């Protein structure tokens, strides 16, 4: 594998380029007209403009990206996360044209992309799933009847959804009746399918996921968990490992269940099994992400591994570099997603970053997509950087984070850095005592 096209942008494109450079692999970046000045465009061996700013005119243009891949004669495509990373047709088409898609098999992407089918698959494999609909809902009456059966509150979700978009919390019958049609319409406009389903809403839950990795030889291992319970609008803000909440016995059970879930679909390459965990440590399969995760640096920090390198090795047909007994977790890592957004109302704050000063000391890793003088445009995810802190224990990692966010200087755009200082000063967070409702409950109201 000598040349890889990166079908993504921002920090993750830079992250992939870094590993490719270390492995002596050339990189082809693709970019939209709005991203011409982005650091990843300059860092790649070559870069090709693929269209206008809007994602459906550039980063979601599978055909256009494949055209560039053909013209550049690349050996493989790395999709990053988001965009086309979980698009089975894109993965299949790349394969049909003799290129390697760095990720799992297209059939696996397809299977796990449909949230109803993935629930069914996991149930069959003996993996616990959240109580809910076994099939797509046909009518609002069917939805109401099922919800009555499961008990409110429930989550109404789009089968093709993910990433926190396309789901609505319904506290009662009236709310479900009101949201049903609009959720269907949104699902159709957004994911191309208006299929929806219901899951019981688990209050005071934690969102904990397990990193898994498989190769073509049937080797499948886990790389420990990440606790992603600090969220806003169902989107992650802070992730850490180990989880400060789980007991060791449940932690172990969760690893075993994650490997079982991945084995049920003969999983290859990097993947993540997301679980929702209730206050009594009962855990349920939520979904599987068939790609590299945004928060993969947390796992890299506690294991000392390069997951992008592993992805490339497995994709070119090699065995996993380590067996389960050879991977170890040590110390504590926590990642904060620095967003260009108002820290109080969580609304996006695009603009030119006139000042960007931070210190990358020992134990601090910054995966940034931007540099000083760059512009955050309103077309893409508002994340400007991931700030990862590592320490011998949780307290040391959090101390490093606090110092970092006290010293950080960003001007020109609003960011959620002030929010991080509030979180770090919060007693419950310090004690690891937080659930998915932590942000809305503690800091907003």
């Amino acid at each position, binding site marked *: 594998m000598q040349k890889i096209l990166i079908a993504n942008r921002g920090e993750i494109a830079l992250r992939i380029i870094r590993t490719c450079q270390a492995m002596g692999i050339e990189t082809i970046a693709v970019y939209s007209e709005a991203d011409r000045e982005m650091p990843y465009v300059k860092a790649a061996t070559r870069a090709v403009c693929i269209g206008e700013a809007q994602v459906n005119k550039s980063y979601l243009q599978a055909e256009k990206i494949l055209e560039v891949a053909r013209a550049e004669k690349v050996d493989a495509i790395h999709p990053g996360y988001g965009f086309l990373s979980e698009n089975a047709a894109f993965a299949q088409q790349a394969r049909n044209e003799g290129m390697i898609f760095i990720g799992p098999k297209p059939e696996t992407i397809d299977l796990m992309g449909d949230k109803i089918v993935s629930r069914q698959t996991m149930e069959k494999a003996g993996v616990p799933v959240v109580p809910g609909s076994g099939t797509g809902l046909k009518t609002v009456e069917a939805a109401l009847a099922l919800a009555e059966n499961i008990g409110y509150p429930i989550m109404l979700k789009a089968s093709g959804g993910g990433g926190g*978009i396309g789901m609505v919390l319904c506290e009662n019958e009236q709310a479900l009746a009101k949201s049903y049609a609009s959720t269907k319409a949104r699902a159709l406009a957004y994911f191309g399918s208006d299929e929806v389903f219901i899951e019981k809403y688990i209050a005071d839950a934690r969102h904990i996921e397990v990193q898994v990795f498989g190769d073509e030889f049937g080797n499948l291992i886990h790389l420990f968990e990440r606790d992603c319970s600090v969220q806003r609008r169902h989107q992650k803000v802070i992730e850490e490992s180990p989880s400060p909440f789980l007991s060791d016995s449940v932690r172990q059970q969760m690893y075993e269940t994650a490997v079982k879930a991945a084995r049920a679909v003969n999983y290859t390459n990097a993947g993540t099994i997301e679980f929702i965990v209730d206050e009594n440590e009962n855990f349920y399969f939520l979904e599987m992400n068939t790609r590299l995760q945004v928060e993969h640096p947390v796992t890299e920090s506690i294991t000392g591994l390069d997951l992008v390198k592993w992805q490339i090795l497995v994709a070119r047909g090699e065995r996993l570099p380590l067996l389960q007994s050879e991977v170890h977790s040590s110390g504590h890592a926590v990642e904060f997603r620095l967003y260009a957004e108002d820290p109080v109302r969580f609304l*996006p704050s695009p603009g030119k970053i006139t000042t960007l000063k931070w210190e990358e000391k020992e134990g601090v890793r910054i995966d940034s997509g931007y540099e000083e003088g760059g512009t955050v445009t309103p077309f893409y995810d508002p994340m400007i950087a991931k700030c990862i802190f590592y320490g011998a224990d949780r307290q040391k990692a959090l101390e490093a984070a606090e110092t970092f966010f006290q010293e950080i200087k960003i001007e020109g755009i609003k960011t959620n850095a002030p929010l991080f200082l509030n979180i770090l000063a919060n007693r419950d967070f310090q004690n690891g005592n937080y659930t998915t409702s932590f942000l809305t409950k503690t800091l907003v109201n």
Partner: protein
Amino acid sequence: MKEITASMAGTVLNIFTAAGESINMGQEVLMLESMKMEIPIESSIEGVVKEVKVNIGDFVNEGDVLIVLV
């Protein structure tokens, strides 16, 4: 003629009103999705909806007219 415009570029996720309806000040009339976030658009004026200029799924730029009131 009074207009409600987009506060930022994004995709129309949901429309909460239709022609002929009266709108109060501060009422949420439309939901935009931008930068993976839902941006509620509230009316800063009162009036009756003459025309909704966009459809669910449309991409709009900052300043584009979303709804015309009379």
